[in-house]
């Protein structure tokens, strides 16, 4: 199985990129969105550590800050989408394998070009 360079599905980089795939968000909006779709609460230190790493790697870029200049939204880049796609493929492959071994119905495929 190809290894995703973002880490496991529940790791902050994957969660942040997944959240940003739906549109730009600042720190607080990211935290709330991730809580809503993954049930995971990222601590402020963890969130900004991951944001710094993702920005370093060119997976996200900052947008102009809001009125107060302190709440800066982030946007996913093409490289970030590609990395997230790799991570999602890996998760899908694992889910399919697990479902097959348990005799469950295969989960629906994520829209895209992968097999």
């Amino acid at each position, binding site marked *: 199985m190809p290894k995703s360079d973002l880490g496991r599905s529940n790791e902050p980089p994957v969660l942040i990129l997944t959240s940003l795939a739906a549109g730009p968000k*600042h*720190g*607080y909006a990211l*935290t709330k969105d991730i809580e809503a779709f993954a049930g995971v609460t990222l*601590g*402020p*230190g*963890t*969130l*900004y*550590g991951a*944001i*710094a790493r993702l920005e370093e790697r060119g997976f996200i870029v900052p947008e102009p800050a809001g009125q*107060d*200049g*302190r*709440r*800066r939204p982030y946007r996913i880049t093409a490289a970030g989408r590609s990395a997230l796609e790799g991570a999602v493929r890996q998760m899908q492959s694992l889910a399919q394998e697990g479902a097959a071994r348990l005799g469950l119905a295969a989960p629906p495929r994520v829209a895209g070009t992968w097999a």
Partner: protein
Amino acid sequence: MGLTTSPFERFLRWYPEPWRARYGDELTALLEDTYGPEGPMPRRARLGLVRSGLTERLRAAGVAGPLPSRDEGRRAGAVLVLCGWALFVVAGAIFGKFTDNWSKGTPTAGRWLATGGYRAVVLVGLLGCGLVIGGAAVTLPAFVRFVRQGGWPAVRRPVVRAIVAVLAAGLFLAGGIAWAHRLSPSDRNGGLVAYSVLFVIVSAVTVVALGYATAAAVVVGRRIELSSGTVGALTVCALVLGGLMVLSCVGFGVWWGSEVFHGADVLRLGIGQGLPYASGVVPPALVAAAALMVIGLVLGALGSLQIARTRNLVS
């Protein structure tokens, strides 16, 4: 950082300065949004910030995370080794004080091994200090260039602080040594309370000065522009210094081990005698010196590993 003051900003001190400059305002805004403008912040979140801040500092020092370039990695490794050596200097000072006149308390027949260990520690200490001074001399032209190009404000505070502390320590040391020469060995080793108090003050001032000097070296070392040749020379110095640390530990261990068998009185009468946890062969002063050496050795090993990690990188 913005002009706003927030109770959360003190937690940002755990992060390195460049990180704070880039993300500090955003993180503070997130903390205010999450916990309200005045907090309080749960303990778990506070600990998370401390952990993340320290992680960022390790990354900034080049210990963790990807290395930007070969020279940056080597420089970061050399800085770590230097920090480890600073601890060795303190340990060496403790050892030096503890071993004051040690040979008089050790029978001649059992002295040769301890003498070898003792001389190794002294020689390594001199060589190491010489290397550090040599390393500083190698970087001096780059430092002067940096200052001429307007970089002084960025390093003024730690450098001035270090100079003042080193001068103060020098004055205290000179005064203490001048006084010590007029005292008997008994007075110098706890017999005279005033001298003991002065000794503690001199030791504290010296340790603080050493800490400030190391901190200044780290700050300057990160900011000045160094050629690949200079970084290479510093790398060699750092690796040799790491080796000297190992030798120093061996010498220290040999001296201690030999004295356990041949000069137990020296250990029993050294600093720390009478403390509840002291024993004839495990005096607290030597334990403290050994602990500092171990921490210094760990830093030295991390720095050397860091340098080794840069082998396949481009400059």
